[in-house]
């Protein structure tokens, strides 16, 4: 609840309780989680300047690749670990702990000039996004809507965002072939901004930054339309399109390297403030507390 103060308080504590630590921490993984981790490391550097932390942005998959190879201590992920990856870690004898950091609310948006869409149901989204061999018009979804072709904008198929969307909406079926895909969410924003018949989805932060030029679509997950906001996402009301963001920590590192333990502790203590700072939504406070308790057991 208290951003800068929290960190300063921590600094004082550090001064009293802990000595100045040294060492190296390597973090890699999801580009979605990167901004949170960057913010945490930035703050952490003020309390422990001698701990050298590096953060990569190789993507969730690329991050796990390095994690499995034993090159990193923490691996950021915008989706839960996959079975194959877990198996590979087991084979290597690497024990890990999953840490939830924040929520990202996938935001479905349309063009500012789109005056017909007020909300969409999960079924509607399915109809729009799953490939079925036809060219889809808005009127196919709702006969009152214009008979114009829907233009779809989606994150690239190898991103965590797409993965999540795939899981909850597409359900493994192929995405519309004519959909415009891009690895860069900013360019999706531009796509939807420039096309009256467009619909797109991307991370909440990209919507939050472009509120004035995009129209958000409330999603009806069965209990009436809900618009993504910090509150609705944090409370879990905005469902099912909000997803947790993770980092995976190597247990042996927490045990053997004091600075890793210290860093993760710092991470959990500050994630709520810092993730909001960079445009994500914090978890309920008790989630962090719970995870801090787990951390103590690993020490």
């Amino acid at each position, binding site marked *: 609840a208290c951003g800068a103060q929290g960190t300063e308080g921590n600094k004082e504590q550090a001064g009293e309780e802990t000595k100045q630590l040294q060492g190296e921490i390597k973090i890699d993984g999801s580009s979605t989680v990167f901004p949170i981790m*960057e913010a945490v490391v*930035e703050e*952490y550097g003020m309390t422990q300047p001698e701990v050298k932390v590096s953060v990569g942005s190789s993507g969730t998959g690329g991050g796990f690749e390095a994690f499995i190879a034993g090159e990193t201590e923490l691996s950021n992920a915008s989706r839960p670990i996959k079975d194959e990856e877990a198996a590979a870690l087991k084979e290597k004898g690497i024990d890990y702990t999953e840490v939830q950091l924040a929520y990202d609310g996938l935001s479905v948006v349309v063009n500012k000039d789109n005056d017909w869409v007020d909300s969409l149901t999960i079924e509607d989204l399915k109809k729009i996004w799953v490939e079925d061999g036809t060219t889809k018009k808005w009127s196919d979804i709702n006969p009152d809507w214009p008979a114009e072709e829907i233009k779809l904008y989606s994150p690239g198929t190898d991103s965590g965002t797409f993965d999540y969307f795939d899981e909850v909406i597409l359900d493994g079926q192929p995405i519309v072939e004519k959909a415009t895909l891009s690895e860069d969410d900013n360019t999706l*924003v531009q796509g939807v901004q420039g096309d009256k018949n467009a619909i797109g989805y991307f991370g909440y932060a990209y919507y939050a930054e472009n509120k004035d030029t995009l129209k958000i679509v409330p999603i009806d997950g069965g209990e009436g339309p809900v618009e993504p906001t910090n509150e609705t996402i944090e409370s879990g009301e905005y469902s099912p399109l909000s997803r947790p963001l993770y980092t995976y920590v190597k247990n042996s590192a927490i045990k053997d390297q004091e600075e890793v333990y210290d860093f993760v502790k710092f991470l959990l203590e500050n994630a709520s403030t810092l993730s909001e700072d960079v445009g994500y939504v914090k978890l309920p406070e008790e989630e962090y507390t719970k995870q801090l308790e787990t951390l103590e057991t690993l020490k």
Partner: protein
Amino acid sequence: MNLINHDSVVKRMKPRLSKNSISKWIFFALTMFVLLILGVLLYRIFSQGLGYLDLQFLQSLPSRKPENAGVYAALIGTIWLMAVVAPVSLLLGVGTAIYLEEYAKENAITNFIKVNISNLAGVPSIVFGLLGLTVFVRALAFGTSVLAAGLTMSLLVLPVIIVASQEAIRAVPNQLREASFGLGATKWQTIVRIVLPAAIPGILTGGILALSRAIGETAPLVVLGMPLFLAFLPKTFFDMITVLPLQIYNWTGRPQAEFHALAAAGIIVLLVMLIIMNSIAVLIRNKFQKRY
């Protein structure tokens, strides 16, 4: 039997001359067109980024707050990267060029090396990224260090340096070699004392072009999996770094518009580095001005 009608030759003169002057203008206009587009490109970058460019920007580490963020780590990282690329690629490139121009005999092996070099010049940079990932990052276990990135980049720009150095060495008149041999100098003495000094301007031009390319490459570094945020600076060649193009790439992908302006400011920093390097090359070129 006059086969050429001089009257008609005179008559045809006019269209030929106008063709000449029209094409001159077309050539000029197209050249200016390229410069103009590049001017527009620069204008956009500068108008967007200049506001963020200050001392603090140069001295700060990346930050979640755009107003605190800076390129310090990336700038220093880029300099470290160059500190690997410049000597490695120059040594290998100039060595290869000397071998090919001064020692190699005309045979199948030499020919193979030459074909190989010109092929290498065309191999996409991203493929070098895959090579670096497999060989330097993984097999030799350099990780995503200065060394791994530097060696990958060195191999990438090697053909440019080789070709430029070969040309520079070839341009040294044979008379100078003869004069040196005539005084009893050995081949290596002649190369070191006569050929290389005379070829330095050309070698430097090639070197600068190569470094300019290395400084701005993004894709192979992305493939290598270089870190993006570092809260510390490298101390040895085995430490990790981040570099300007990656930092720029990262900023452009952020949602906040301020970060996009930061990216533009980062590009300006990169351009300034390029211009400084080029000016140094011009200075050295002038100092070693050859006149034979």
